[in-house]
């Protein structure tokens, strides 16, 4: 697993959100949260599992909206950050964090209404086995994102310390098919990659973001998007 060692250190866990989601990164955070809510919301009273939940950005947000949610991650350091956040938000009574292996989940078949994983598949060395396991424990929805092979991300992808796997649409479709999942909805965004937004202040980022969004409206540009969101259903 590519991120296994990288995300285990306390410094990486503590700085994780500050590094990625401040300044221009705030736009990324907002876009990702919207993607999650559009795909699996409304979640009130639903049983949700989040794989690779990290510091609980989505876990806590979904708990605030009434989901009974479990956040699973390999890193104890990231989860302790998540616990603090859940306690501060007052949602600790219907949210649980645990350490676990995404390929061998400690849950029975068909338990959750929705199983999701954000920023996970680019770290996955065996994506087919992870997706099959997500499908096993879900009775309805499976949602995840990928970073795209034919995009601006490929410019800096090789330099990332945690490693990163890029996907084409065809690869995702065949992964879904093998896992017994049917694509229900897909969305594509960020012609300018995440790494670009992280480097610039929030005010400047908004200008680029609006250019980015209107660019995506043009025909043929969608396939240049660096991020794709995939909502699928258990067959």
């Amino acid at each position, binding site marked *: 697993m590519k991120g296994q060692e990288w995300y285990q250190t306390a410094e990486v866990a503590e700085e994780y959100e500050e590094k990625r989601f401040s300044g221009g990164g705030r736009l990324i955070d907002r876009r990702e949260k919207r993607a999650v809510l559009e795909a699996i919301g409304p979640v009130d009273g639903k049983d949700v599992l989040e794989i690779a939940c990290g510091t609980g950005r989505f876990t806590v947000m979904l708990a605030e909206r009434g989901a009974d949610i479990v956040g699973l991650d*390999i890193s104890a350091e990231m989860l*302790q950050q998540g616990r603090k956040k859940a306690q501060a938000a007052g949602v600790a009574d219907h949210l*649980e964090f*645990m*350490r*676990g292996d995404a390929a*061998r989940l*400690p849950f*029975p078949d068909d338990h959750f209404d929705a199983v999701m994983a954000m920023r996970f598949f680019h770290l996955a060395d065996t994506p087919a086995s992870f997706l099959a396991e997500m499908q096993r424990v879900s009775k309805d929805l499976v949602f995840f994102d990928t970073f795209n092979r034919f995009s601006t991300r490929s410019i800096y992808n090789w330099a990332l310390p945690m490693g990163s796997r890029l996907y084409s649409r065809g690869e995702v479709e065949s992964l879904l098919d093998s896992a017994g999942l049917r694509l229900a909805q897909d969305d594509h965004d960020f012609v300018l990659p995440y790494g670009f937004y992280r480097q610039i202040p929030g005010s400047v980022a908004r200008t680029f973001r609006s250019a980015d969004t209107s660019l995506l409206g043009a025909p043929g540009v969608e396939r240049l998007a660096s991020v794709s969101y995939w909502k699928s259903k258990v067959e």
Partner: protein
Amino acid sequence: MKESMMDILCCPMDKADLELEVDHEDEDEIVSGTLTCTECGEAYPIEEGVPNMLPPDMRDDVPA
């Protein structure tokens, strides 16, 4: 972890039921303890309120 999690948690290896042993509890939260598989006998520790459900082969090279 809350005790109600026992309704859904199972052994990651063989998906059998687990038995809970509580070492330390704070109000309704289990802070430390052990979850033991009723089938294969593998033990999963609960540390700082977080159950460690990593299979044994992944636990050694991963610092707690």
